[in-house]
């Protein structure tokens, strides 16, 4: 289900825009005021309308309705009457231990996947940035997880994890462990195993974004550092990473949102098991809406998640902006 979100959302992996992008409205405003005369302002409308009208109708309107549902007792059913209930859903939610437990799992999942995805993608981007042979092939292969239809991705991974017939188990045995392992079904390994798949799925977009950033860097800074005798690692930490910082901030925060919203993948792999170890909050609210028909409560969960995630991002991005100022 949420695959929709993930798939459609992925393109934005590219959005690693930098300071001069739209992010901080203030600085940009001053600039445009100087350059673009005020009277031209309305000329923007006809340019924007063809894009914004359908969006307002087909995206914003349902979204607002969705948010409103969170303050009602809406349920699935023919001729159900919906009542406005104010904050009642939120009071109930405070007592819902299972929801908060899944929220905790969601945070562990989203942070681990985002961080690992970033580290792995940075490594790959650095390699692809080198003048290696067969680079064209490597770049294409790096996009594989993105090209495979999401419908089959989880099924292929579940096959590979199969303790009887999957290759992963025979590799584990090859490492000297004996017996059959169902990494997806074991209490200690289920979450790490789905995290690996999560990292795999999101790597192409993160890699390409970082690679673009790397290639756009001013090479003279690198050369200067090299002349100063800085080693590869020091150059990475002191030259490369600081200049990539705006892109890193943008891509990691978007990755975080998408990872937090992910669940179709995990649903096929583990259905939230074993023992609820991989019950991500989005899976939880999906069940609430689609399995039990409690639309109001599910929308309330959505609202709570939006609030918390937006607040976290605000602090994350605010600090970034301050550092860069």
């Amino acid at each position, binding site marked *: 289900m949420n695959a929709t979100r993930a798939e459609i959302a992925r393109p934005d992996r*590219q959005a690693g*825009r930098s300071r001069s*992008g*739209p992010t901080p409205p203030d600085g940009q405003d001053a600039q445009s005021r100087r350059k673009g005369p005020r009277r*031209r302002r309305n000329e923007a409308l006809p340019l924007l309308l063809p894009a914004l009208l359908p969006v307002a109708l*087909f995206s914003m309107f349902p979204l607002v309705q969705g948010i409103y549902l969170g303050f009602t007792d809406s349920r699935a059913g023919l001729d159900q009457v919906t009542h406005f209930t104010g904050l009642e859903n939120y009071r109930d939610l405070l007592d819902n231990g299972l929801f908060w437990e899944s929220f905790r799992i969601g945070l562990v999942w989203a942070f681990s996947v985002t961080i690992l995805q970033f580290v792995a993608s940075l490594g790959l981007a650095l390699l*692809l940035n080198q003048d290696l042979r067969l680079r064209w092939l490597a770049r294409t292969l790096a996009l594989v997880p993105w090209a495979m*239809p999401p419908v089959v991705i989880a*099924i292929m991974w579940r096959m590979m994890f199969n303790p009887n017939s999957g290759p992963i188990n025979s590799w584990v045995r090859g490492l000297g462990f004996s017996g059959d392992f169902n990494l997806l079904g074991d209490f200690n390994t289920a979450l790490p195993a789905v995290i690996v798949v999560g990292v795999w799925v999101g790597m192409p977009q993160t890699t390409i974004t970082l690679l673009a950033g790397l290639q756009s860097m001013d090479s003279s800074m690198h050369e200067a550092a090299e002349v100063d005798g800085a080693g590869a690692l020091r150059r990475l930490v002191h030259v490369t990473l600081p200049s990539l910082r705006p892109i890193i901030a943008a891509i990691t925060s978007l990755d975080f949102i998408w990872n937090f919203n992910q669940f179709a993948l995990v649903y096929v792999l583990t259905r939230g098991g074993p023992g609820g170890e991989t019950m991500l909050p989005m899976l939880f609210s999906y069940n609430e809406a689609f399995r039990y028909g409690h639309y109001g409560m599910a929308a309330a969960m959505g609202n709570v998640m939006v609030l918390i995630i937006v607040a976290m*991002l605000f602090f994350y991005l605010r600090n970034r902006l301050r550092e860069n100022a």
Partner: protein
Amino acid sequence: MSVRAHPTRTRSLQYVALAGYLIFLGFPLLWMLSTAFKSSQELADITPRLIPSDPILDNFGDAIDRADLVHAGANSLQVALATTVLVIAMTLPAAYGLVRYKTWLRPVTLSWILIGQVFPVILVAIPLFLILDQFSLTDSLVGLTIVHAVYALPFGLWMLQGYITAIPRDVEEAGAVDGAGRLRILVSIILPLLRPGVVATALFTFIASWNEFFFALVLIQDPDKYTLPRTLVRFVGASDQVQLGPLAAGALLATLPSLVFFLLIQRRLTAGLLSGAVKG
């Protein structure tokens, strides 16, 4: 230090690391490729083999016939292409407007992109369905295209506006001095400079639409209008029963066009990303 001391050793380490990455990223595709050529007996074997011991082609025939892959592929192509054209046509002027004019729409658009990202799509599915029904757009590929376009649009907007920001204003003002109109500036000056960025945005939009499943599931009922992901799930049954061979074969056939496309344009794509992401 070490880099210059042992250039060849570093190089080989880099190749090893790169190979590691490619195995990690490419292996599931390889496994799918292998699965597509295995009989159901071999798939039920307990010795995992990457090279099928007795490769067969039946799965491909099965996938093409039973899932009506060619017809579904044509539908998918139609929807994905139309979505791409629609998104580019709508976002290009809008991105330009957002970047070059000061307007209150900018902060509104940006906040909407963020909140729209976080709020779960499943919760807006039903209101959206009702609106589409008002316009008789359910069970129609046009309706599906509009939904795909609307959901891909913010990201296209976000990306293109980044690429436009990177184009120096002087270039444009030179045109204005020559007396060229707005539209002509957009078409004859901005567009050529933007080409790589447009290619990248188009590619992202195309893939997003090509692979989209949920809306294709709930909006489309007429089997003549099924898209690829929608028709592939017919090989997935209850209780984790999966007809793996045909599923893998079908998925492979659905993946290859994107990969070949990547291969052909990867140079241009990277270049596009470069000029787009160049410091703004």
